[in-house]
């Protein structure tokens, strides 16, 4: 199926039913032997079979969308690992791998994470350099076969907007943008103090088609339901995506373990959907088991949309 047809099918599916995202990539790669803190994007060419294995596990768990292994795929993050001149190669390879497993049976979400620094005037990075880095990554992900691009784990609305604009300029038909929130005395805020409403407004103005939250610091699944309601209120007609962590990490017998079980994820899912989430997946610590537990709930064909304007997505 050509990319434009798949993208139209994705828009259609989003209008018809809630979709199921996949779970964490990084923690899965560590299980397959990635050293703590090592550059996981190198595995897209070095150990493609391991990346395929992670995608296949999520596909078999029922994920409608597979996220590329490119969270740290900007030149900025790759260079911090000493990897230079390989943005196009590693991001293209990653999209190809996800595409191989997804075929025409699932969609491929090309992943763009934060570039790792702070933009001027607060930090030292000129916005045009960050924009160029996001653009180069977006170009390669789309060339490799991504159906849509996901700008995620953002704290700074200015950075998120840059990435969304770059993704759109690269030709992405659908761009998702999600922020990472923490619970503060004055409500859910990003590290930069941005509210859900302000975060959503920034990326909508930049052209995002879906908005939401992923990751988050010390947010419980109940917090996630409240946050979802805030995001839905801010998003208006746009669908909302939520991808929670599997709780906060703990060290158990020298290994990192996450508090929220697959069963707890499943128990939380109806609340996320009731709050208006249209795409549910998982972030850090979530596994194929978490996604499999979500599948029957998120993908239940009879589930009516609680959202009052379910058909508001325009079919291009």
């Amino acid at each position: 199926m050509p990319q434009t047809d798949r993208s139209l099918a994705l828009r259609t599916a989003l209008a018809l039913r809630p979709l199921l995202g996949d779970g964490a990539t990084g923690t899965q790669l560590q299980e397959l032997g990635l050293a703590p803190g090592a550059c996981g994007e190198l595995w897209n060419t070095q150990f493609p079979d391991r990346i395929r294995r992670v995608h296949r596990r999520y596909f078999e768990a029922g994920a409608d969308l597979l996220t590329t292994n490119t969270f740290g795929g900007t030149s900025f993050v790759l260079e911090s690992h000493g990897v230079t001149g390989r943005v196009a190669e590693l991001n293209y390879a990653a999209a190809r791998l996800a595409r191989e497993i997804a075929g025409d049976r699932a969609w491929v979400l090309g992943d763009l994470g934060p570039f790792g620094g702070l933009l001027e005037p607060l930090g030292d990075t000129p916005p045009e350099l960050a924009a160029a880095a996001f653009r180069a990554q977006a170009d390669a992900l789309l060339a490799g076969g991504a159906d849509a691009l996901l700008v995620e784990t953002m704290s700074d609305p200015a950075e998120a907007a840059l990435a969304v604009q770059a993704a759109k300029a690269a030709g992405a038909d659908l761009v998702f943008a999600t922020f990472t929130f923490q619970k503060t005395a004055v409500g859910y805020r990003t590290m930069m103090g941005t509210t859900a409403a302000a975060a959503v407004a920034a990326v909508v103005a930049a052209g995002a088609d879906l908005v939401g939250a992923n990751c988050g610091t010390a947010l419980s699944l109940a917090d996630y339901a409240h946050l979802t309601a805030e995001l839905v209120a801010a998003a208006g007609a746009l669908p909302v995506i939520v991808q929670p962590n599997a709780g906060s990490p703990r060290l158990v017998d020298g290994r990192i373990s996450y508090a929220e079980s697959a069963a707890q994820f499943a128990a939380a899912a109806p609340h996320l959907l009731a709050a208006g989430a249209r795409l549910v997946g998982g972030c850090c610590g979530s596994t194929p088991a978490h996604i499999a537990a979500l599948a029957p709930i998120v993908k239940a064909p009879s589930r009516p949309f609680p959202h009052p304007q379910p058909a508001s997505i325009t079919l291009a």
Partner: protein
Amino acid sequence: MAELTELTTAVATGQRAATLRLTQELLAAGHTPSSLVERALVPGMAIVGEQFKRNEIFVPEMLIAARAMKEALKILEPLLIAAGIKPKYTVIIGTVQGDLHDIGKNLISMMWRGAGFAVVDLGTNVSAERYLAAALEHQARLIGLSALLTTTMPAMKETVRVLKAAGVPHLRVVVGGAPITQQFADEIGADGYAADAGSAVELAHRLLAPAA
């Protein structure tokens, strides 16, 4: 005539130009560099830390205040050095091995500097041996370990173990970072945990205070 409290306010609200002007005016009026640091900059950054802790301000406001403070220190530090005045405490900070994230670490570093400490910032991806060597070289009393990645939490545990096993007298090790909790800090035997950059200053003061 300019007052010390004006400088405190200028720093706390991140007014860089006013901070610069007031620093020069107060020096010209006869205030010593160390009194400007102790009676204006440190209280100004303490206000910032408190507001940050209470979620009245966030990272951008803290960065802007720290930048104003740095403007004042650019003038004051050479004068302090020329006068042979050294900060009372030297502290070490860095992000643990395997972790390249530095935004949180830099915030703590700025706030500790704002508390009047000499801060030796080792950067990111710091091995236990490098922390230890720096602590010995600088006769530091406190080491701050930062981690953002959950996957580098074991490296934090190992670093605490190595530093504790070295048995350096009076050396305390504190930890922080998005995935870190008080419970984790207790489990790995750290001397303290701070949830945010404001609390990190209080924690440092508490641990560095001479035993009563």
